[in-house]
């Protein structure tokens, strides 16, 4: 049973990785001047939209947390609105944190905001899909021994890897190599993307390697 679960997780994650690679490669066929570095803001939008739709679709299809709750239409609408509000708030929060870390305040606002949206897609949207708009569950998951299923462990790993990737992506900015990818926010968003993809691949492997030690408390 657990092996099947891990295999499903691996398949879902590989599909996500593949979709991100597609967003980098495919639009060049439709639009001549599209490059990841050149038209970076467009790529950020496309990537965020694709990853979010894929995650929502995967969640609806796979339904990893099967909660047999009575879901009336109003309840579903309120949950959906709550999710949207949380996502938007997390975008604003990420934007504020990035500006406090040293990003320019008045210039390049669009770039900073789109980077914040990308980071929210990689972190908050995953939480919303897997855990729902339930703050207590989020607090529980992001603590030691707080994960209650394989999907939550995967969530921990992908979130931390994407944030670490964004942090490491800030390091090339002061270098004087004069490369096109050192312009703000390309290095950070590429770092976040690579971190997310690495997290997606590492998570099933790590879970598989530690499957004996990972015991989940049943509710």
């Amino acid at each position: 049973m657990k092996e099947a679960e891990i295999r499903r997780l691996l398949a879902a994650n590989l599909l996500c990785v593949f979709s991100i690679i597609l967003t980098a490669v495919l639009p060049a066929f439709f639009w001549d001047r599209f490059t990841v570095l050149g038209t970076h803001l467009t790529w950020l939008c496309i990537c965020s939209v694709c990853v979010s739709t894929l995650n929502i679709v995967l969640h609806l299809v796979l339904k990893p947390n099967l909660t047999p709750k009575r879901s009336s239409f109003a309840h579903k609408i309120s949950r959906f609105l709550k999710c949207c509000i949380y996502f938007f708030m997390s975008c604003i929060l990420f934007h504020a944190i990035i500006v406090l870390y040293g990003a320019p305040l008045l210039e390049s606002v669009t770039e900073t905001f789109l980077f914040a949206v990308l980071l929210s897609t990689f972190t908050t949207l995953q939480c919303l899909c897997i855990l729902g708009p339930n703050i207590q569950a989020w607090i529980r998951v992001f603590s030691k021994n707080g994960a209650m299923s394989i999907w939550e462990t995967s969530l921990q790993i992908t979130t931390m890897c994407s944030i670490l990737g964004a942090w490491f992506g800030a390091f090339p900015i002061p270098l004087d190599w004069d490369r096109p990818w050192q312009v703000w926010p390309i290095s950070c968003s590429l770092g976040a993307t690579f971190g997310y993809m690495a997290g997606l691949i590492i998570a099933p492997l790590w879970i598989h390697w530690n499957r004996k030690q990972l015991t989940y408390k049943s509710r």
Partner: protein
Amino acid sequence: VDRFLHSYSLVAQDLPAEQLQRLQELFSSAVEEHTRLLAQVQGATLVPPELESRLGSLISRFQLYLREARAVCTQSWARFHPLRMLGGCTLIAASCLLCYVASELAAASDSFYRSCLLYPLLWGLMVAVLLGLACAFTQEGLDLLLVSSWAAAASQLGFFWHWWGQHPKRARLAGSQPPLASIGQRQRLQAWLGLAFPMSILLFRCGAMFSDSFVVAEARVAPFLLASLVMLLVGKLHWDGRLTVPEGPRQQLLGFSSYRREIWYLLCLVAMLLVCVRLSGFFHQCREEIPQCRPSLFLSPLASLRNTRAKNLFYLLCVALLAGLVYAVRSWLRHYGNLNSSDPLVLFVRWGFPLVVLCIACYWAVASSADDSLGKLQELVQVAVVAFPWAVYGLASMGLLLLLCNPMTVFAKDTRESAGSIVTPYLGVPSSEVDFLHVIPQIYKRMQESQKSRLERGSCKATIAAYGLGSVYSAALVIALTLLGFLLMLLHSERLSLAFLLLFLEAFVLLHIHTHARGLAGDAEPFSVPWYAVISWLLAASQFFYSTGHQPIFPAIHWNAAFVGFHLDHSTNLLPAVLVGANTFASHILFAVGCPLLLLWPFVCEMPGSQKRKPRKEHREELQEVEEHMMEMRLRESPGKFSTALLHLGLKYLFVLGTQLLACVCAAMILRRHLMVWKVFAPKFLFESLGFMVSSICLLLGISLVMRVDCAVSTWFRHLQLR
């Protein structure tokens, strides 16, 4: 190569002229030979063999020319002593290791410290004397550098030898219990991981010294690392589950967890720190390596502003900030009861601080006035420009002297029965009835009081109430820091007082974050300062080096600080050096003197977990029975632990400073042939080493001040008990 040598010799004179002449002749003869060969080859279709041999000899002549040119150029390069450089690096690395090992030593007996710290010092002195004698006998010149290096190496070897001698003993003692290998390994792994998180930030900081772009951009790297360290701290607390309410069984069943109420305060503090860090970026000076940088407009003095309204507004803002600083310090001292007594130091805080602010404000007003606007008052202005800074220097030195003489800011109220009588003494026969009437109410009051005290003796003993005893160490440090802050603000340009206010605010916020994190983590030992606190303190010190308008390059030195209070030339070099040095390393001075606050602040702000039965404004010390000690008096419960804690804090601070210095030194050594060595790495090395010396001296001064206060408190207690 020939063209380059020719144009270089026109511009600079460090290549010797006769060698250049010889190279020029070599080159021109070879070129002539080459043209002759070409002319000969032009006509014939077949190349005869002797032409080929001449071609071969021509090639070797050109190669000889290139080798000679390279030799001439190499001779003009700077020469280094690789062996000495390596020796110096090894000494610094060994010192860092020594500081780390000594700071992790568990509190042990006196003899342990004597053997580990005193004997190596004696070893070093002995080696120094021996080497000095040897130099005198062999009649070589006394190379002070070599003698001191060997003495240092000898004392370090002595330390490691003594420590290693003690170490197996402790290991044997620990090994007497049966070890459980897996748990020991897991605990060690956890200890390593716990250490990894602050040390990785330190590693990144040291690694950044090896890249010229990162050294040039260090003004932005240090705040980035500080913000990352603080966020990592919060994240680690969250991961360890310290931020949530401890779960009861019902909550565990539901998977329900919520945040504690205190973490909102912690998050506010973190947000304030991030805002301070971001705002401090507005005071940076520019380097020429960054072409599109514009220097901060707060660096230019007010006298250079043309717009009178803006000048007045900025002036009022700066004076308001100074007044605000005095008000903040006074209200902090009043809150902890340190302003109640009538000691000279407290009187100085009450009256001297506003006077200092007044003098600084007058000095700024006079110095920023336009030259031509005051006309007839020119002479008065000249006198004022010298008199006001001298007044500030005098007041500040008086304050520091008062602090050293009597650092106690404690007010003792004696509520015991007064021995004296309150009845008016017998002055002979009472002359009128008024005197009779006067005496009887006094006798009645006296009888009432003695009755009351007899009844209350069971419940409340007569005590001596001491106000301000719970924060006596921190109060002395805060007063010293404020005085130093005023002195340093005088030496900077007027609008940089904004940066100093940010400095004090950020230090205050860092101390509170550290205190709250310890309170939330809960299981820490109160007498040790964790590594992340020391590293964040030092990152803040580096951040404010850049945010007070300095850069580690020579053109960025504020030379006009040497003329604050000295209108004309100086007679010696010492005084302007001290003034310029104090200006440049202002943030190092303030953070190093304030370092003991990292140990004292968690005691001053008692965190939940310790009892808070009595109100915070006063601290009552009962003499008949000694109750549990409160606030900083807990430090006096175990004086051995207190002094060990101070020693460990100092060693940790020196370790972090030492690793930064080691990184700069290694970078300068490894990259000595880099293109940017003279512009980037060598000035950075000089500034970092001078900053290290200034920080170490100020750290010693800060710790000595705390020990002086400790002596004064012990004397005060002795006097009380004698009474």
